[in-house]
């Protein structure tokens, strides 16, 4: 069968539908530009939509993200492709870009899906739920999570047994296994790269025992446990379901660590760990929380007060570098660490350990640019060629960067950066008119 490729035209292509890309798309669309928002995942909202609360205000993350996400989804000037990847981008000249977008089959007609979840109930398969970071299962046909946008089912074809049970129960007959991959040639005048970040994988530090010791979890797993749409009935140890009462945080896991190839500070781990500690004290009033840190970096508005508040609440802060974690028979963990202030190597027992994992660049986007080079900085984030005067500018005129694609930053800074990218894009597009 010959492959047909449809041609589409927009003013701006925004790559990445997280909070930064979403903000850029929304601003541009409000001005009147036609925007195509391409998201690799099945839902927009990025990592923020999965968080429990945000620091230092302790506002509910979902309550901030959801209205924004629905505004993006409903905007007449924004077209969204989810489950789609940007294959290549070519600059033909100023204000003339061509991109090839690959839309993977979802096997569900999104416009017909009502989100009733009868298919989920019927599906016999259970595999690891990536949106709960592997702590619980999900079906092979699934709605990513309750506040996903679009809130529509998708089929995980890799794990589907093609039993057809979902099709038989679907009241709108929206499931369609005949769907195939589609490719689009998209002509745009400008591009915003908002591809976000990856989290550090603690399997790269075997001495912390992640993966081997089940009560050592990542901060993103704890974030899910603290969220209202949590994987368990409450906060529990994944190793045996015990309610923890003595939790340790290991800061700088995969940040400021040359041995794992990431020498820079991730900027958010201190604060999100302090936030989680405060939330844990609320959820588990009897629990002791200890944070092992190198330096607490509480540089933002209200951050230091937030840190002081955690200290007042009784969170223990130990200036120490954790060298090794070992497991006891009962699932408790022994942390061997250097107490920096005492100048001694010490050991402490905790019943659960949270590794505060760092922010890494989301690799691969620069390779999609064909005839001009989208330069990276020494840490493989997208290089901001004029960081002080024009922070969204990249090495390609007409391609702008938003959010953590350019480096670690927190949510307010990501949104600001998305705003800057939309403003700089507008300025570039206006130059086309004159």
């Amino acid at each position, binding site marked *: 069968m010959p492959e047909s490729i449809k041609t589409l035209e927009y003013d701006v292509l925004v790559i990445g539908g997280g909070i930064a890309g979403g903000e850029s798309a929304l601003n541009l669309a409000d001005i009147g530009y036609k925007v195509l928002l391409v998201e690799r995942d099945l839902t927009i909202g990025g990592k923020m939509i999965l968080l429990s609360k945000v620091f230092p205000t302790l506002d509910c993350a979902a309550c901030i993200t959801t209205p924004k996400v629905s505004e993006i989804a409903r905007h007449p000037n924004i077209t969204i492709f989810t489950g789609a990847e940007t294959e290549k981008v070519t600059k033909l000249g100023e204000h003339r870009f061509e991109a090839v977008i690959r839309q993977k089959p979802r096997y569900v007609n999104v416009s017909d899906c009502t989100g009733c979840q009868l298919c989920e*109930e019927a599906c*016999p*398969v*259970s*595999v690891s739920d990536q949106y709960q970071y592997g*702590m*619980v*299962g*999900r*079906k092979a046909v699934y709605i990513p999570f309750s506040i996903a946008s679009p809130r529509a089912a998708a089929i995980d074809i*890799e*794990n*589907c*047994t*093609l*039993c*057809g049970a*979902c*099709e*038989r129960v*679907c009241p709108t*007959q929206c*499931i*369609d*296994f*005949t769907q195939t991959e589609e490719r689009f040639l998209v002509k745009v005048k400008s591009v915003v790269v908002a591809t976000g970040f990856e989290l550090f994988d603690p399997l790269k530090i075997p001495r912390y025992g992640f993966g081997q010791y*089940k009560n050592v979890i990542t901060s993103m797993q704890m974030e899910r446990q603290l969220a209202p749409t949590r*994987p*368990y*009935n*409450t906060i*529990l*140890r*994944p*190793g*045996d*379901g*015990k*309610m923890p009462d003595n939790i340790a945080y290991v800061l700088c896991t995969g940040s400021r660590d040359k041995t794992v190839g990431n020498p820079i500070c991730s900027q958010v781990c201190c604060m999100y760990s302090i936030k989680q500690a405060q939330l844990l004290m609320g959820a588990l009033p009897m629990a002791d929380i200890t944070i092992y840190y190198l330096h607490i970096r509480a540089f933002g508005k209200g951050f230091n007060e937030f840190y002081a508040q955690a200290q007042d609440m009784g969170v223990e802060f130990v200036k120490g570098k954790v060298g090794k974690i070992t497991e006891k028979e009962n*699932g408790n963990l022994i942390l061997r660490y250097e107490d920096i202030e005492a100048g001694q190597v010490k050991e402490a027992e905790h019943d659960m350990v949270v590794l505060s994992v760092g922010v890494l660049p989301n690799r691969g986007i620069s390779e999609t640019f064909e005839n001009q080079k989208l330069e990276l900085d020494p840490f493989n984030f997208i290089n901001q060629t004029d960081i002080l005067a024009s922070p969204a500018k990249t090495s390609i005129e007409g391609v702008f960067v938003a959010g953590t694609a350019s480096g670690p930053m927190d949510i307010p800074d990501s949104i600001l950066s998305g705003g800057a990218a939309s403003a700089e894009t507008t300025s570039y597009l206006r130059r086309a008119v004159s």
Partner: protein
Amino acid sequence: MEAEKGKTAKYLKAKRPVPKAVTEHLKYFTRTKKALINALKEGEKTVPQLAEILALPADEVMYHLMSLLKYGFVETGEMDDMDEYFYYKVKDHGKDKS
């Protein structure tokens, strides 16, 4: 082959056989689900108790039990006397069809 609406899984199955690992995984889950529900039908239990009865690692029991909680086969009961572990029990008789 023209696929009939509502019966398209067959169409794809003819084109793309299901890998053996996927069917094996389904069998394993179904077996574990049955074992967990049967154990809970005899009375509510904690994760370590279930791990002992099923002779499975506690983390695996936890993962599958929490999946069954999510899918609506199981519900949470009281905490044990030491305030450490929750008891879990079958919901709606484990939906019986399992």
